[in-house]
């Protein structure tokens, strides 16, 4: 729903029922998570929802900009953060990528990478089912049939005429056939990928 329509709905719903529409909740100031997901428009709509009951005039001033609602954007953001948190928790990926490798020998890095690889691999294997887009040995001749999907097969080089084409398979591609992401419950700040750890010494 565009914010424009939402703003109108806010006005009338508040006027006649004394309540804001559910969708407006995402713009309310208390919801800091959602607000931060939308750095650009965050101030405006929050104010809008608050002041919707004050002046009809202000509603008319809203520019009709179409953007995803706070709910949807926050949902996307939380999904991305949850995956990152998973890779950090199981494979320490964020720690690894944020650490400078300059002062370490390759052997030391190798030892750690085996563990990181095992953890991250587990995350990928448990949550995604992967298959090759074009099964077959790489660097062998393959046929690209007529009616192929250019989104699935990327042709490289000089292409002339109509498919079918014959060429060399350079990369078999990856396709996700199943996504099994965890269910995320409300009320947890997903921006905390890993909490700080403080050990309290027992007296």
């Amino acid at each position, binding site marked *: 729903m565009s914010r424009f329509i939402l703003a109108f709905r806010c006005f009338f719903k508040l006027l006649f029922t004394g309540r804001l529409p559910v969708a407006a909740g995402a713009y309310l100031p208390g919801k800091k998570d959602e607000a931060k997901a939308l750095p650009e428009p965050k101030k405006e709509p929050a104010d809008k929802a608050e002041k919707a009951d004050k002046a009809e005039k202000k509603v008319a001033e809203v520019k009709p900009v179409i953007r995803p609602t706070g709910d949807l954007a926050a949902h996307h953001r939380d999904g991305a953060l949850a995956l990152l948190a*998973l890779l950090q928790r199981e494979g320490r990926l964020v720690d*690894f990528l944020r*650490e400078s490798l300059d002062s370490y020998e390759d052997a030391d890095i190798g030892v750690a990478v085996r563990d990181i690889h095992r953890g991250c691999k587990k995350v990928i294997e448990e949550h995604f089912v992967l298959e090759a887009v074009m099964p077959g040995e790489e660097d062998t001749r393959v046929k690209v049939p007529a009616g192929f999907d250019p989104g699935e097969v990327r042709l490289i080089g000089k292409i002339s005429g109509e498919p079918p084409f014959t060429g060399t398979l350079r990369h078999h591609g990856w396709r996700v056939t199943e996504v099994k992401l965890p269910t995320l*419950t*409300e009320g947890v700040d997903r921006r905390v990928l890993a909490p700080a750890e403080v050990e309290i010494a027992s007296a």
Partner: protein
Amino acid sequence: MSKSKSTTSTFVVGIDLGTTNSALASVDVAGEEAHGVTPRDLVSRSGGDRSGGEKAPPIEHVPIPQVVAPGEVDRRPTLPSFLLLPTALEVPPEAMMLPWSGGAQPGYVVGEMARERGSELPDRLVSSAKSWLSFGGVDRAAAILPWRGAESEDETDEDSGGARVSPVEASARYLAHLRATWDQAHPDAPLGEQEVLLTVPASFDAVARELTVTAARQAGLEKLTLLEEPQAAFYSFLARTGDAWRKQLRPGDVVAVIDVGGGTCDFSLIAVSEQEGNLALERVAVGDHILLGGDNMDLTLAHAVTQKLAADGQKLKSSQYRGLVHACRRAKETLLGDKPPRSATITVLGGGSKIIGGTVKSKIDREEVEKLLVDGFAPVVAADAVPRVQRALGLRELGLPYATDPGVTRHLAAFLARHGRRPTAILFNGGVMKGSLLRRRIAEVVSSWYGGEEVRLLEGTDLDLAVAHGAAYYGMVRRGRGIRIRGGTARAYYIGVESAKPAIPGFAPPVKALCVAPFGMEEGTRVEVPGQELGLLVGEPTEFRFFASSNRKTDRPGQVVDPDEEELQELAPVLADLPAGDRPEAAGQLVPVTLASHVTEIGTLELWSSASDGRGRWKLEYSLREGGGE
């Protein structure tokens, strides 16, 4: 054809309520009922005990959604049997919410997150609740767990966190979680209405079984039957091999089921015989509850690696210890598995955000693991070996009675010697037994006890999930598909009766033990205890001492034995409360009664007393207060 009355559920569900992990398996039986096939038909068509005659509906393993991290719910093959009871400062309540709870914040969490976070909050973590259920040294209905939990400042204020629960309540919460996840996935067939087969250790006595049923009822499971875990593992073997088991086993065979879980060891013997041309199975003996398992092995390795690291001048931070135990478990599985490499690397990433800098690395050789784990946990011992009992100190910390001898083979030798049956085959169960080296060693040791004659290994079960799988299969057996293992009660039960003797100052009147339920009493049967009438004190609760024996297999009801016999184990006392209101004339006097026992269809033992004049009948209750002691 009429539909069977007793089977209105559409699923048969097996639940393995484990000490460290719980699992769920189910069979959809809606199809066969829709076709009007009743269990009776299946029996007659399949000749009573054949499992291969008809195509049985498949048994499916049910993954369990659970909180795996703050605010994150995911499916896992099993539910770790851990309960975390943190304060709001330790884990924010919203982090433990479940998507189906409608925003309710229970203030506790079970499963993976409880186990992982609980390792950092040991004082808030309830673990091994099941072992506490069978431990008579404490009041099992009282809120005593977490056992070592820090005393909270205000014990009465539950909201301040640091709450405690009883072993029954903890078990009920695991079961309630299983029920909630099931109901979520099957809104039309809630678990409370399905036929549920719940497994218990074979070593569970009548009181521990009763408590398990209490927990299940508390969790809303109504149509319930208990099954012994080693039997469930054996049923899983039967289900997996189909009719082929008849070729693997012959009359006269005795199968030792050796079930080594994360924290417990459980043994049973199942005998194969021939009856009217068909093979028959009977569970002839069960062992004691031994608190020894795979977790002990992981800790043993972790201890050895810590010492190695210290010798190398490497130091582990306390935050890395959990990672070390995980790494040791992986090394154990690699080095004890098939085609093991010469050695395994143990890597523990740095505890802080600098992981490469803090990484600790060590190596463990196959020979070391064999020495530590195979020789340590399955030592080569003689047939007459007995577990060592260490009582070095006069004072011992009160808690679960962990086995002091880690030698599984010694416990096994004592078990076999006690029951005098020679096993001809072994069925292993439990994740620990994935290590083929361990399996081979135990088989070799057992074979050496019987002149080196080969002991066959029965294979084909999934060592982690067999118990839930077999429990679901047993549900099918109860519906007439496949062969049933006969067994009945694994113990004989006795009640302590005060002798009528002239009083001697300074001496309590002697107590004799009267057999009230014989060994092998089948489910759904009832026995009257013959012999003299007993006097029951009316108007106030009266306590009887209660004993059990897994060795005395020939005692009949009414038989009197000396309770000081070593073979008799004292259980929690039994309470009788005969109201005096009905018989005002008898207040404070002894009313003549007779005793009867009843093994319910569920698998629990009930004791009843009936007034000889026919004026009333009362159920005797197990008292959960601290056991009578020596």
